[in-house]
């Protein structure tokens, strides 16, 4: 702003000088004829008595003006030159600091790349764990599919499913850790961006290098904490991996059990035995040596047992005959399901089959066992009883 004003002033001063020149050189150009009257007035004025003081005043003003304009125009340069002379003393240290910061930055960058490397390694590990998990799942699936004794393995399956779900949750935890790593990485990227910004600042404002250094330090500490986080995550993953291995062991033992171990008994087997004992004391009856009792005692004692067990067949294990015809009557069937009909005697190669119905057969129509909330615990079907008086 100042400079612009000074420039205008300078131009005006030169113009004024030119004007004076024109005034004093009336023969300079015919074109000047147009301004003749103004020139005449000027000349008249100059010719007046106060010619000398006015001229002197104008000349003085002009000179001052010129000087001021020139001073202002060249002042800036001078100041800049003046300051430029100082730097060798003031700026001398920064390059060294700068170098130091640069070194540090280099170091940080190195650390960053190391961290990234560790991260990618961890990620690989997590992926590996995941794929192991997947393998495990596949194994499980394969196992459950290949098992031909599905019914017998029902309980095991549920246990395996439980294991599977635990493994899955572990895998989910690993995934979560991975996601956390990714976020860490992005955080670090952000950090490096901050570094870049710091560097730029250093280059641009070398005299602010101290602040930049501070910032660098801050960033470094952030990086350190990030690295700490990373190492703890790595540890977590390691422990997850250990747990996964343990699960694998458990799975193996469960698989072993399934091939004939103690856990191979389905809960319904326990439940049915439990109910027959509870409602009808059937296990007690079958386990008791009845050879010593006379028929009357035996007959009477069986009554409540028969009643209780029968009720169980009415309420919970509902049976119906395979064939509804009277036993002893003649039946004819075109086709038979060998699971439902057993043929005996002189059996023709193909139907229709005609013969006497010996046994109507039974099929389990309904099975209304109470729902077990968390499977069957242990292998007790009738607890020992102690009465405290």
């Amino acid at each position, binding site marked *: 702003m100042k400079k612009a004003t000074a420039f205008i002033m300078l131009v005006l001063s030169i113009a004024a000088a030119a004007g004076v020149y024109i005034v004093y050189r009336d023969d300079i150009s015919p074109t000047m004829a147009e301004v003749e009257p103004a020139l005449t007035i000027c000349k008249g004025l100059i010719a007046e008595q106060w010619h000398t003081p006015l001229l002197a005043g104008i000349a003085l003003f002009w000179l001052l003006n010129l000087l001021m304009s020139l001073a202002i125009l060249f002042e800036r340069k001078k100041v800049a030159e003046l300051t430029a002379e100082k730097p060798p003393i003031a700026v001398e240290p920064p390059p060294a600091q700068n170098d130091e910061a640069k070194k540090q930055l280099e170091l940080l960058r190195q650390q960053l790349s190391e961290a990234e490397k560790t991260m990618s390694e961890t990620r690989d590990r997590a992926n590996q764990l995941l794929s192991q998990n997947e393998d495990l799942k596949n194994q499980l699936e394969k196992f459950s599919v290949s098992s031909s004794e599905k019914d017998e393995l029902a309980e095991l399956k549920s246990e395996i499913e439980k294991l599977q779900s635990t493994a899955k949750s572990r895998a989910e935890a690993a995934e979560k850790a991975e996601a956390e790593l990714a976020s860490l990485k992005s955080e670090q990227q952000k950090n490096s961006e901050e570094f870049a910004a710091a560097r730029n600042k250093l280059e641009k404002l070398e005299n602010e290098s101290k602040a930049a250094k501070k910032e660098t330090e801050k960033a470094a500490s952030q990086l350190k904490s990030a690295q700490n986080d990373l190492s703890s995550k790595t540890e977590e993953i390691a422990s997850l991996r250990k747990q996964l291995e343990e699960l694998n062991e458990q799975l193996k033992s469960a698989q072993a059990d399934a091939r004939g171990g103690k856990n191979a008994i389905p809960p319904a087997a326990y*439940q049915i035995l*439990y109910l027959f004992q*509870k409602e009808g*004391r059937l296990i*007690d*009856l079958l*386990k*008791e040596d*009845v050879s010593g*009792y006379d028929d009357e*005692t*035996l007959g*009477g*004692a*069986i*009554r*409540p*047992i028969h*009643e209780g067990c029968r009720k169980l067949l009415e309420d919970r294990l509902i049976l119906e005959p395979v064939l509804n015809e009277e036993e002893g009557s003649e039946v004819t069937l075109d086709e038979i399901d060998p699971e439902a009909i057993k043929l005996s005697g002189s059996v023709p190669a193909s139907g229709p089959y005609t013969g006497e119905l010996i046994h109507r057969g039974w099929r389990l129509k309904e099975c209304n*066992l*109470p*729902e*077990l*909330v*968390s499977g*069957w*615990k242990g292998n007790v079907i009738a607890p020992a*009883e102690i*009465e405290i008086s």
Partner: protein
Amino acid sequence: MAKPKYLVGIDLGTTNIVVTHTPISSASEGAHPEISLMPIVQELAKGAIEKLEVMPSFIFERLKEKPVLEWDDESKFIIGDYARERGADVPDRLISSAKSWLCNTRIDRTQPVLPWNSPEENSKVSPLTAMSMFLRHVRHAWNAEFGKDKLEDQKVVVTIPASFDAAARDLIVEAARMAELPDVTLLEEPQAAFYSWISQGDKPWRQQVKKGDVVLVVDVGGGTTDFSLIEISEAEGDLALERVAVGNHILLGGDNMDLTLAYVARSKLEESKKKVTQWQTVQLSHQCRKAKEILLNETDKDSVPVVISGRGSSVIGGSMKTSIDRSDIEKTLIDGFFPFCDMNDDPVEDTEGGVREISLMYAADAAITRHLAKFLRNQNSNDKQYGFPQAILFNGGVFRSEIFRNRLIEVINSWLNNAGKEPIKVLEGIELSQAVARGATYYGIAREGKGIRIRGGVSQAYYLGIESSLPAVPGFKPPLKALCVAKQGTEEGTIKDVPGRTFGLVIGKTAEFKFFKSNCRRDDEFAQMIDELDETFEDTSSLMIELPAYEGMKAGDLVDVGLQVAITEIGTLEIYCLAKSGNHRWKLEFNVRDAIK
């Protein structure tokens, strides 16, 4: 609050709880609504759960059984079927008949006293809490079944014995509130059975009764017996129903019958020098019930063998055998519970006298017919002959057996015959063990204005005890007078000021009013003063009030108050004190804590 979608009826029985429901949208005028049962999920042995149509009203404090239902209460207590089963083994931890304890005026019903007389180290709950536990279990079971249509948002009717007095009704509402069911309506069980009879379509009720008939509802449940009289009248050209009388609370029911028979069998076994343990008596009771049903239903059989198995694993070696004969049934059950008697007979009073240990007030006389005779006799006054009903409606599992129905009809007809009346008509068509729950849901429909309603109102007349002002005489208590504050049959939704009576109450001091009820003084008018209290009056929980300081009145000041009586829409009785000056009203609370002296 979500919009109610269902009408729900809860039969809160002494021994069994049944829940029914119908969508509100299906309730329409004149139709026979489809009322469904809601199976109630319950814990069973061995960590199993099952939905059962009936929930036994039993609570068992857990020993080491692992909870399987993740609901409040269930972590510490087993409720329902398994509770009953475990309770047979460990009776000290079993709470049974909580509903009967709720109307026992000799105990503080809000204090943890159940299981009664159990060892100190066992946890105890109050009868009030026990009732709320059942209702909360029902709420959880409903919410598990219906999801977003929560029970607390539905229109719920809870049944109570007709004999419940005003204080016991209040306690049921309180129990429901504790179970987070803030809006329930109460309905008397015999009325519920009657509604169930109205709702059935097989034998239209209008063809079975006519104007002027009085119907006797006899409800013999598992643990209680309840009588009610319903009059068929006419209003606006259609038949109208009015419940005109209810009986007293009689702790006598079907369970007593099974137990009686078990003791018969037990004494038979002991005669043959066999020792029967308490546990075996439980088993015997089951066996006897089965034997009873066989003998009652198969008239050609004269004897049914009863065998109890040995308790040890030697099931045959340890077994004991006896038999229940037809004569046992006739002698102990029919003649024991339904003996022939005169209409002027009274139930045999407890003759032990003197100090009696507090317990449930089991009826001293098992003869249901004698209790009925007393009830009916008290309903006859000069102008009304309610004591000679024209029709009878049976309810309760006991009456599934024709033999009991026939005997009761025979006895009633002998009374009617002596009085020169027509024999009684039997109303048919209800399902005896679910009728109350179904009727409760139908009452919900009737309340929606889509079915006929029984006008019932207050089941009994209520009186405030007032001491006569007489000069003090040492050693002589001034006689009590009774002020009638609720006339029997006053309808729901009535609010009345008692005229002409002003009481001076001191602020900050507890004032207590003696309170009486009567189920046979149908002629006493509202605000009438009865000078002498005879045996037709019965003590009930007293009323208490403590006036707070208000409007510049401070403790010790005397305030003049009048009385206001409200019969609420949900079926409770509320009495208020009204300040004579100013616009203040305070509710008198029932004193359910202190025993009635």
